[in-house]
């Protein structure tokens, strides 16, 4: 009797865990199915390129957010950081490439310092990153008070590149997912990084430095933010401090949607990629459905709730 119920429960948990880890892909598949049903043309090389283009910078920003969330922190500055990178690239990369690179390198160091300060002074990551979001935005405004600037030709060419077999954004999404999966989920390096968020004491007792882990993670988040800004500038071809404020919160949503959790140590790189694409596609789907513009943002909220509600239903634990 007891055995049966345990077995049943185990089977139940197995099914639930499959559902839980599969949820981001189910959501993405459903979203794509609706999009294809509405607009079969998107299945072409050109259509997919257009459709997926804007999800790449969001995927990169969501990766940055995922690393920080896996530490048990939250990064409220990634959106304005991507905006800063966008401005630096649009203003300096054309004529003063070295200076532009120097500023971006300094910004990444700034990200690492942010992580170190959070750790050493035991500060709340929410408040430190909130403060830094104002700083990044302010610097971006100083560099480019009004939208303008031009992306260098080579960068814009990159976004226009005709990749073989599949459109470039699809290649990029797959490459990012594979790299993320193998560095974070399949390497001893990834275990230490995830452990630093899940059980910092155990990692510290095993002789690893939590401070170093934090430095590595925040630097990586900064570099991912720079990459996100670069790709975004390649697509938009101009600069605007206000280009990506929504990235901050949407990247958090993509991580949670993809199977991450705020408790630390829990992340899913491939799920995050799927989550970011799903959220980026939500906008396209709503325009294909002819949802009036005034309702679009509300409908995005509903999609967010619907997908996360699915996550609550297949949840196994109370956390």
């Amino acid at each position, binding site marked *: 009797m007891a055995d049966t119920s345990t077995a049943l429960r185990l089977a139940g948990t197995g099914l639930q865990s499959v559902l839980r880890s599969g949820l981001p892909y189910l959501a993405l598949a459903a979203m794509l199915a609706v999009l294809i049903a509405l607009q079969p043309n998107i299945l072409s090389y050109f259509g997919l390129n257009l459709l997926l283009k804007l999800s790449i910078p969001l995927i990169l920003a969501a990766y940055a957010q995922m690393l920080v969330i896996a530490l*048990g*922190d939250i990064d409220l500055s990634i959106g304005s950081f991507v905006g800063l990178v966008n401005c630096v690239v649009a203003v300096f990369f054309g004529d003063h490439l070295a200076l532009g690179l120097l500023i971006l390198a300094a910004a990444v160091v700034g990200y690492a310092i942010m992580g170190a300060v959070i750790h050493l002074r*035991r500060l709340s990551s*929410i*408040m430190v990153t909130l403060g830094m*979001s*104002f700083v990044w935005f*302010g610097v971006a405004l100083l560099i480019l008070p009004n939208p303008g600037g031009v992306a260098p030709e080579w960068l814009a060419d990159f976004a226009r590149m005709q990749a073989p077999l599949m459109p470039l954004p699809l290649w990029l999404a797959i490459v990012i997912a594979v790299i993320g999966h193998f560095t974070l989920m399949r390497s001893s390096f990834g275990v230490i990084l995830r452990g630093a968020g899940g059980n910092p004491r155990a990692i510290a007792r095993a002789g690893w430095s939590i401070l170093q882990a934090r430095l590595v993670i925040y630097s990586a988040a900064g570099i991912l933010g720079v990459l996100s800004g670069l790709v975004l500038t390649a697509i938009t071809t101009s600069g605007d401090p206000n280009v990506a404020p929504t990235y901050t919160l949407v990247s958090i949503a993509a991580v949670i949607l993809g199977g991450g959790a705020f408790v630390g140590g829990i992340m899913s790189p491939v799920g995050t990629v799927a989550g970011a694409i799903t959220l980026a596609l939500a906008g396209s789907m709503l325009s294909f459905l002819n949802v009036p513009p005034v309702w679009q943002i509300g409908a995005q*909220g509903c999609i967010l709730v619907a997908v*996360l509600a699915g996550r609550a239903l297949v949840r196994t634990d109370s956390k």
Partner: protein
Amino acid sequence: MTAMSSATIALRAPWTLNFVAALLIWGLTLVASGGRGGAETLTVALAFSVFTVLAGTGQMFVIAAGPGNIDLSIPAVMTLAAYLSMGVMDGDAALLPLGLAIALGTGVLAGVGNIILIRALKIPPIIATLALSFMLQSLANNAGGEATIKPPQELADFAILKLGGVQILLVLVLALSAFVQLVIARSVFGRYLLAVGQNDRAAALTGIPVWWIRLSCYCLCGAMAGLTGFLLAGFSGGAMLNMGGTYLMESVAVVVLGGTAVAGGRANAIGIWGAALFFNLLGTMINAFHLAEGWRFICTGAIILFVISLNPDEPR
């Protein structure tokens, strides 16, 4: 001696530094303008602080309710409440009570909506309130679109009404802050709230209705945001889209700078004033010195980082 002791107080209670910083900035502005217009500068900053404080006080209840609790729907609630109430009144002062009730009701309903998403669907508050704010934004777009809906003249007059040179609204909101402080420190609700914020499990074991407390916090926050939208529409000439935009992160910042613990369990309603004054005087100073707009954000970020770094005992 007095300088020494006030320095000690400032270090023990970093939120008092906001008042010092605000005073410093006011002094700098005075120097820049050659001593002219000091009173006006302060009056204007105080008048705008009223709205920052109202929105911030709501956010304070939510943040004090424990780790992870945050309300990102404040700007959307403000805008929607302003549109609905101004639309219903349509300039008719006789309908002011109805308009106010609608503004408050909108906020309370938003609070209920937030708690439903957080509790029933187990969505983290930061995302639940964001998702709800998207929906409310759409409702506001439909309620008003691109148009500005004007307030009844009486409401506009009341928002700037002065008795003996003192803005009435300012006095009322100051009194409200004092009352809220009293509620936090002395009432059963206040003690329950801080207990839930410190350790919700322990609070539940002592029989505190944890989720009712959280529901009250989100509803109070919504109602305060609704009230802010209602009054701001009166003050600034009508309900406008994006009227709440700057309150998204600023409401969080003033609360935490004001001495409320980010992780919950400690609340300070009076401290919000110092941070709100600082933010609003900063804008005036940047203008007085003809500095680029970017410096305003850099200074805002710097003061947040500075005050936060004086609170090393915050749990992460």
